[in-house]
């Protein structure tokens, strides 16, 4: 990788030229996926709108060269949580270059359609950084409908939902009728329906990969972060070691100034649901939960408290909203967070949650696409059981 300072100093036209050069070289195309990582030095010290232009251009390059399995998660992430018209349109277009259309892609497209329909606007894909000043071009809704048509019979699971978009009162605008009809017709593709059967043969195992698990012996240590100090929603200070060692923990990241309701606000709301699930199983005292802000300079205890309270988060000594008092560097390094900054302000981040083991080491991570509360609790219980089985083995050895 190039030097971080050199990379972040490059101008937008230089970046666009680099993306085009990578896309043109079959041996380097894998680097396009790398450019979608939020923590890439290219995105350091850039504004949010600039990052939209840059990532959009990468997605469009991927649309030309073909989405790989590794890039698929980034494309689906944009459809799942994106609210920017340009990025969602680019992601929808990119998805159509994936070589294995399958039925588990359709719900992502449909979700994006539901989110973006009231934010639909003309977008321009012709030149880097161009904004549409006429409505003759494409829009995210048009791109999404074209992607449903591309999925064809693989999207039959969302057919009813799509048909409801033709309704007079709650449907999409009349001028999109042709696009909807085309998608419906392609999905119905009657002759192929029977042949499809189970179409998961070419999907990455377990669907798009948003979860990673580290076996006990491969987890990174916590030496570098143990002494890190946090301030919680009440203004109480606690170190990483004090809060995260001794029991498993579920950790999510967020910041109160996040403008995307599909990301931080939803993540913290889901944390509240996770707490309820833990409580229902009598585990609220055995598994800690924490929501850590990406924006510790601004998210003071009062703001953390109000943000958590408004989303139903249970807050006490075992369940806290935290800000790192010495900044984000240690946390970014330890969790390998998918976030970048312009000065102290977040300019782009992914959705991410972690399960830490009894030593505070990352055991499981969930990233980019929607967090499933039940799945997180199930995995946390597995990590809790690790602790019990380790204690048993230790006890047997002593005997």
């Amino acid at each position, binding site marked *: 990788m190039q030097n971080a300072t050199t990379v972040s100093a490059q101008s937008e036209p230089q970046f666009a030229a680099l993306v085009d050069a990578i896309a043109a070289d079959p041996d380097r195309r894998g680097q396009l996926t790398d450019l979608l990582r939020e923590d890439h030095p290219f995105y350091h010290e850039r*504004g*949010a*709108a600039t990052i939209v232009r840059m990532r959009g251009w990468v997605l469009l390059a991927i649309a030309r060269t073909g989405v790989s399995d590794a890039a698929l998660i980034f494309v689906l992430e944009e459809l799942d949580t994106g609210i920017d018209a340009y990025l969602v349109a680019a992601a929808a277009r990119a998805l159509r270059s994936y070589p294995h259309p399958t039925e588990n892609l359709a719900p992502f497209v449909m979700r994006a359609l539901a989110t973006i*329909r009231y934010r639909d606007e003309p977008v321009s894909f012709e030149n880097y950084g161009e904004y549409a000043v006429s*409505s003759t071009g494409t829009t995210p809704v048009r791109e999404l409908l074209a992607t449903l048509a591309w999925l064809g019979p693989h999207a039959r699971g969302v057919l009813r939902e799509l048909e409801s978009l033709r309704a007079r009162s709650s449907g999409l605008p009349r001028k999109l009728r042709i696009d909807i009809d085309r998608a419906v017709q392609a999905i119905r593709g009657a002759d192929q329906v029977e042949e499809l059967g189970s179409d998961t043969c070419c999907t990455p195992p377990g669907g798009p990969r948003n979860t990673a698990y580290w076996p006990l012996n491969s987890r990174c240590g916590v030496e570098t972060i143990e002494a890190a100090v946090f301030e919680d929603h009440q203004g109480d200070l606690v170190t990483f070691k004090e809060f995260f060692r001794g029991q498993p923990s579920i950790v999510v990241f967020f910041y109160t100034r996040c*403008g995307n309701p599909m990301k931080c606000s939803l993540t913290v709301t889901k944390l509240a649901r996770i707490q309820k699930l833990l409580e229902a199983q009598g585990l609220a005292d055995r598994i800690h939960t924490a929501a850590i802000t990406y*924006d510790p*300079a*601004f998210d003071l205890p009062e703001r953390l408290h109000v943000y958590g309270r408004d989303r139903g988060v249970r807050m006490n000594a075992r369940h806290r909203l935290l800000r790192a008092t010495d900044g984000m560097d240690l946390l970014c390094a330890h969790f390998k967070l998918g976030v970048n900054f312009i000065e102290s302000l*977040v300019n782009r981040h992914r959705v991410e949650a972690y399960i830490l083991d009894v030593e505070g080491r990352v055991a499981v991570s969930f990233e980019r696409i929607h967090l499933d509360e039940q799945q997180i609790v199930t995995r946390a219980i597995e990590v809790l059981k690790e602790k019990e089985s380790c204690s048993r083995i230790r006890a047997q050895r002593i005997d």
Partner: protein
Amino acid sequence: MVTKRKAATSSKSANKNNKNAATKRSARSALSVGTNTRRTAKERIAALAEAPLAVCESDKDLQAMLNVLRNQDEPVEVRLAALKSLQAASFSVIAFESCRGDYLATLRQVAEDPNPELRQRALGLLARKKDGFAQKKLLEGLKNPDKALVPPEKALQLLSYDVHAEAYSAARAIVNKPPNDDARREALRLLAADASAAPLFEKLLLDKNELREIRQIAASALHALKPEKLQEHAREILLDKSDYDDIKATSLTALTQFGDEALGKDKALLKSVDRFSVGKALSKYKQSARRFLSKYGQ
């Protein structure tokens, strides 16, 4: 009985439908007057005010309205009335769904119109939607005044709608070398959301030679960014008889919200706040003093 009630209900609903249809009809005829170049400007402006309901009725109507807005040969006041009408229509998010794309594209065109008022209005509407095009143009104008579409103070105000707009460095440059007082004030307002600007605001707050309005902005910003710093200085400000009432009121709010019990034992402070609560200050400021006294006073 049931039949009677049913009949009454159906007649009520028929009346409602008729009313709606009549309203829509009149909105459509208003729109056709508003977009008719043979009518006087006065007639058209009055008609356009009644047209929002009809804007999205048909693509033809929408295009006619957008044409009025973007046509530089039309009288400016009629174009402004068309913009107002479209803006009113856009509040009905669902009804406006089919018009949104054309509307935004047109706003982006008008953002570079030769008429400064139209430009500013269009940029204002786009900036509220956190539009990347508008932000790019506004930032370009701040960096290169020859390209500016609006005065710097307006650009900063519009950029402040989006905390992620990449405007902090431009605002800092303006604070260091302000083209005018208004631009400096707006730059400071924008920086009030920048956590790293707390030391700047602390310095401004303590500078008694600074403009009153600027010190008030500094006090509010410090209250949001580093409340403990404002508390540190709040006592001195409250004890200083010569300081401004609004700055004292902000200091009182900081102490009331974040202060500790020791304040109740600070006789000099309590006396000073008591004096403030019955003095010549505006009643809203006196109210702040009373809130403080009810928390810490005897």
